């Protein structure tokens, strides 16, 4: 399902260059729940963004379902993300001036759904996540845990095959952390592939397989 070959990423900034990923190869099967761990600065976020088609690697290929995503044009890759991938971030990145419902509607709108369908689907998702009574709240009117659930609903909007989560529990208390991971587990059981970066060993353990990155390389 996800096949990464010989992936390297070098960042250049102000004369310095940092090798964030160093010849990483791995493959993830359909329906797997993977956690990625490693020290700070080891390249976890970089790997996830490369997997999601958001940053062009310096060398190497990323194949998803047989399609080499960096051989696509920018527009094509955006459309691919829209249909196949859902991102969840540590700080959720909800659009601050839109309500919970509207935030979830954005990917639906980008996929060409009309307003009626958008509202119906977004409401359904938010209700499933226990936010049925928070549809018209802006992010700042929601608790951190609720914001994270809106972000998950947004990632799920277009029925993605893969969820990519970067420290989804990094800002949550133990209770909501537990809830969130449980929810990711449930999603995984419906057949969605989940790749999750985390610093929390307890969270990492709940994945089927853990990949460890050190200095941009996969470690044993």
């Amino acid at each position, binding site marked *: 399902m996800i096949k990464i070959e010989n992936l390297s990423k070098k*960042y250049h900034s102000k004369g310095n260059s940092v090798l964030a990923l160093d010849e990483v190869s791995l493959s993830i099967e359909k329906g797997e729940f993977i956690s990625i761990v490693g020290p*700070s*600065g080891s390249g976890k*976020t*970089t790997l996830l*963004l490369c997997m*999601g088609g*958001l*940053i062009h690697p310096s060398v190497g290929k990323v194949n998803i379902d047989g399609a080499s995503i960096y051989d696509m044009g*920018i*527009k094509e890759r*955006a*459309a691919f*993300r*829209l*249909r196949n*991938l859902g*991102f969840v*971030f*540590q*700080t959720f*990145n*909800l*659009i*601050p*001036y*839109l309500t919970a419902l*509207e935030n979830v*509607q*954005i*990917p*639906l*709108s*980008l*996929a060409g759904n009309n*307003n009626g369908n*958008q509202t119906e689907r977004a409401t359904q998702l938010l209700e499933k996540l226990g936010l049925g009574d928070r549809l018209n709240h802006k992010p700042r009117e929601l608790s951190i845990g609720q914001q994270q659930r809106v972000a998950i609903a*947004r990632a799920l909007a*277009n029925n993605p095959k893969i969820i990519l989560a*970067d*420290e989804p529990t*990094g800002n949550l208390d133990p209770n909501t952390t537990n809830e969130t991971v449980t929810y990711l587990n449930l999603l995984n059981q419906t057949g969605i592939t989940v790749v999750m970066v985390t610093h929390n060993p307890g969270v990492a353990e709940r994945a089927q397989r853990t990949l460890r990155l050190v200095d941009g390389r996969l470690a044993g």
Partner: protein
Amino acid sequence: MNLRKIILKELLERKKQFLTSFIAILLGVIVIVAVKSVSNSSEKAIAIQLDNLGANILVLPQTTTIDNYFAADINAPEMPEEYVERIANSTIKGVDNMSPKLSARMNIGEHSFVLTGILPKNELASKPIWQTSGFADPGLQAACDPNNIMNTSHGYEDPKLQRKVIDSLGEYDCITGSDVASKLNLKEGSPLEINGTEFKVASILPQTGTVDDGRIFIHLRTAQKILGKKGVINAIEIMGCCSAISEGLLGNLRNILPDTKITTINHIVQTQVETNHTMAKFSVIFLIIIILVGGISIGNYMWSNVEERKKEIGSLLAIGASPKDIYYIFIGKALILGVIGGVTGYVLGTLGGMILGPRIAGVKVLPVPLLFVWAVLIAVGVSVIASYFPARRAAKIDPALILQEI
């Protein structure tokens, strides 16, 4: 939800920040529209009026300006009515018709009108000059050929508006313009009290769109009496034959009326056109100012808006928006700002022109639809061009720079 809604919601959420740059562009559009609509209307009003005046020479007191004449200022200078006799009794050829006038602005109720005293034709026709000239003379008629350059119109000649020679007018009769009639609710035969004197409305003139709509014509003698200005007038309108004008009629009139200002209508129109050109130059300067100030301020605002929304742009890209979508979000925002600025600027500028026009230029200003197109084009143009680079920058933002939560 769609891109347009995203733009609008963002605009509404952060109103204060774009207000300054919006106001810069709005003010510019308001001034341009106001100046343009006033100059447009004044040029047109004067051309309409002069084309339909039935006269081509104006004799005015030395110190009068043409604006005094049209605005009928209370303090407009006067000259002795005896000047009419002087012309009539002279040997000057080519004066075909003469109409002495005394005008004053006055209030009836809360409305302000221009009271104009005129001499009806039957009281002038007895003068010897009308027996030696006039349209009866075939030679003169040829000289007054309408195709002659001096008689050319400015394109506003309208038989309906043509100010007819008034054949007779009773001592306490009045003829009112259409605005006067509608504001005071007058009909033919209605009584009308002016300065304590009762008049009867003899007829109501059709709407002309000029100062004449706000005029009340009464007999010159009566006007002189109720205004307390016996024996004076403030203008003589003359229909001179064009060949006579080119043969020196103006010089001849100046010889017998040395302390007056004598001009031809064509000259007045030209002066007005020049004034309008000056106004047009001012609006060009303003245009440059809005383009510079408005453009810089919008560009500046957009740039910091992109900066502020980097994270949002990153998450939109992650969700599946393409860089083009991001570009359209910002260009679309500029478009909306421009359209709102252009439309509001046009409305406010037109209102400004309609309020100021009668005060500063003595003309009734009507909305100029063509200016709407220009106002929107200018505002949208400035706003979109100024936002081009910020929008391109937004579209090129590298999600890697923002999504990494280090």
